């Protein structure tokens, strides 16, 4: 039941009606039931995994809080083992077996990889990381364990952000969920603005440009100029798609009176890799920082140690997205960017005269956007070979062939839509550069308008979304992770 379907609209109507009628703890149970129905609509069998995760982490965290070392550490390992074990089995088993078989075959050892046709439970990467952070925080004594199973189950299964985040921390979310059963319902109407914005970004923009990213699936057949266009298309598609999910999730949560964290803040306005990761999928990058990079040693050791930690963190961040070599490569690419930026930053601070003047900032941002695009080409390509071919063409080793591609488009009468979409990309980038804000901030600004223009803006967004929706809308990209 995706956010952009008629089913979800009916679900919301039923849910909010029921929620408004209930009081106290029964409201919490109703929210939990609705979350189970929402998740079960994809595949009800995987509800068992989710419920398993709830029970294991709830009871392990209680035990961790009571125990002393070394039992405490062993209990934490049980939780980590369970969560990562489930994730490894469903997400990575097939990949590692196939890769091992391919390696053995290259070494001349003929072997057939067992065909594992494992269906990936939707949202598993998101809720696994969320529950992991809870047990680790309890272990680190940064958080008292929840003693209320309902409250903890809601933390894991809260339907607005269950499937694709933001990955919330228990310290922020648990007190808000606790308040739902204790305090009167205070829906925040700005949630409607976020939902309308999210629907517009997903349906009208991300789903609209979907077809143009397809050139990255077959870079060997594409004009280099077309491949650059496809790369821009994918860069904006994935941003519109994923940030739309976050916007709708945050909007729905606000209607329940819950504030979720900001997940995107105009990422293409970033001037460098560190800045990019402070703006893109913020809940994941903060998770990786707090539960991986810093425990690995962060930047406390030598320069080499810092670089190693950065690379390892980004490699695992890449692998979190999917069990494929391209994601690993994408992670390595961003790891290398972070290392290069850190090394360069050191040099620049030694020679302040080398720092970029202010007037060059737009060019720096635009240049880094293109570097990000090179990463997206790796992310979208279907195989390692396709990654290589895409980069070969994106680095213009065959030239740009712009004139040939434009004549080709004119022949196909596709020039106008391509030009229009290019215009949309330019505007979208400029909006991010000139107004580098999160959707929350944009909607807060919208809410300062008088009621009529505000209502008109929301109506227009929702209406355009409906009008421009493709015939067969694709699912949210991050559902596959």
């Amino acid at each position: 039941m995706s956010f952009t379907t008629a089913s979800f609209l009916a679900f919301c109507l039923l849910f909010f009606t029921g929620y408004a009628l209930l009081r106290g703890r029964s409201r919490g149970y109703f929210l939990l039931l609705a979350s189970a129905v929402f998740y079960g609509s994809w595949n009800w069998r995987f509800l068992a995994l989710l419920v398993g995760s709830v029970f294991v982490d709830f009871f392990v965290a209680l035990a961790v809080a009571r125990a002393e070392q070394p039992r405490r550490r062993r209990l934490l390992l049980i939780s980590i083992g369970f969560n990562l074990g489930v994730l490894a089995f469903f997400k990575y088993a097939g990949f590692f077996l196939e890769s091992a078989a391919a390696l053995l075959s290259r070494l001349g050892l003929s072997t057939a990889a067992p065909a594992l046709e494992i269906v990936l439970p939707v949202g598993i990467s998101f809720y696994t990381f969320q529950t992991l952070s809870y047990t680790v925080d309890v272990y680190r004594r940064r958080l008292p364990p929840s003693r209320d199973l309902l409250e903890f189950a809601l933390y894991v299964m809260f339907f607005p952000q269950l499937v694709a985040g933001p990955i919330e921390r228990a310290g922020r979310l648990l007190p808000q969920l606790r308040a739902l059963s204790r305090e009167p319902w205070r829906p925040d109407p700005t949630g409607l603005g976020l939902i309308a914005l999210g629907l517009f970004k997903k349906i009208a923009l991300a789903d609209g440009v979907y077809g143009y990213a397809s050139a990255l699936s077959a870079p060997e057949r594409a004009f280099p100029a077309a491949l650059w266009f496809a790369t821009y298309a994918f860069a904006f598609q994935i941003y519109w798609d994923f940030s739309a999910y976050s916007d709708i999730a945050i909007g729905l949560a606000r209607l329940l009176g819950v504030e979720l964290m900001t997940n995107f803040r105009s990422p293409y306005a970033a001037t460098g890799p560190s800045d990019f990761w402070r703006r893109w999928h913020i809940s994941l990058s903060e998770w990786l920082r707090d539960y991986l990079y810093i425990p690995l040693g962060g930047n406390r050791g030598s320069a080499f140690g810092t670089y190693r930690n950065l690379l390892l963190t980004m490699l695992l961040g890449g692998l979190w997205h999917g069990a494929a070599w391209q994601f690993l490569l994408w992670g390595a690419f961003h790891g290398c960017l972070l290392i290069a930026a850190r090394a360069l930053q050191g040099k620049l601070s030694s020679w302040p005269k080398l720092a970029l003047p202010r007037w060059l900032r737009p060019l720096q941002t635009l240049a880094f956007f293109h570097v990000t695009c090179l990463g997206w080409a790796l992310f979208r390509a279907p195989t390692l070979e396709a990654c290589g071919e895409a980069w070969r063409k994106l680095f213009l080793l065959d030239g740009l062939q712009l004139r040939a591609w434009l004549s080709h488009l004119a022949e196909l009468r596709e020039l106008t839509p391509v030009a229009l979409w290019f215009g949309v990309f330019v505007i979208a980038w400029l909006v991010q550069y000139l107004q580098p804000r999160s959707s929350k901030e944009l909607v807060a600004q919208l809410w300062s308008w008088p009621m009529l223009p505000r209502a008109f803006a929301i109506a227009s967004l929702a209406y355009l979304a409906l009008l421009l929706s493709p015939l067969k809308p694709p699912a949210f990209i991050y559902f596959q992770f």
Partner: protein
Amino acid sequence: MALRWLLPLGLTLAAFVAIDRAIGRYEEGGPYRQEIPRPILAVQRAPEARHVVLGCSTSNWFAPALVKGWQLPASDVVDAHMSDCLQACTLAEARRLQALGRHFQTATFGVNTFEYCEEYRERRSMQEVELMPLGRSLELARVYSHSQDPLRYAGGWLLNQVSLVYGNTMWLQRHFRKAWFGDESSGSAWFEQEPGPARKRSQAFQCDYAAADRDFGLAATRGALVAMMGLAERVQLVVLPDREYARDSAEARRGRELFAAEHRELVAGLERVAFIDLLEPELLDPNLFRDGAHLSGKGVKLAQSLLSKRLIQLPSAERR
């Protein structure tokens, strides 16, 4: 507080509906909506007609067969079939005609093997919502409860109540997207240096005849028949093949037999409904179809001749 909360929402919906009405008028709102008033007007313009034909475009050849088979004047049969109007829509149309105060001696309705397994379409939801008198919406809900995703149907119903554009997006999208942004589903030709061979277009009107879809189709047919029993003294259900099940294969034969058996059983429980089986060897030829669901000109002639011979007998007093 509640007013502050609800006012923007109300204004939003009002603006939504206003824009929607402005560009979604019947004469401009695309073929699926344009189709809705035609059969209703046809019935209103034929106050003397005693026999009505309902169903979708696969029933568009029934009226001449009825005229010929019962030897009636053409004005005695009104063709109220509606393009795209599958069983749940026929249920809504029958209830609408009933609400308009019409009553007939016979209502004839056709279902082919394709129509009992087609999945949800927004435009069908639009037709159902526009035709069904609001007070009878529970009948639609009963049919929707047989689908794999009842919430989707409920959401479609709700969206169509708010905005009629929702169900018409098929046409509106084609129109506006092509005009403003082009068609994103144009395949890979736009980026290819040397375009590969053109891909064969997927066959229109095909389905997998899954059990869950059949359950929904049967529930919808049952709903339509019950509604037609309120509209006419007697009802004829005509079962037809589609191209897939007109083939000479074991799978198609099994499918046809199951289809006929399920519908025969359905009709057996309804007193005033006659079952007319046109899954005849003469019609079981894929070449008699112009696409997956519709008969060709030759197929129509053959089917009309078969139908006119298998109609129920009208008492002589009912003939003119």
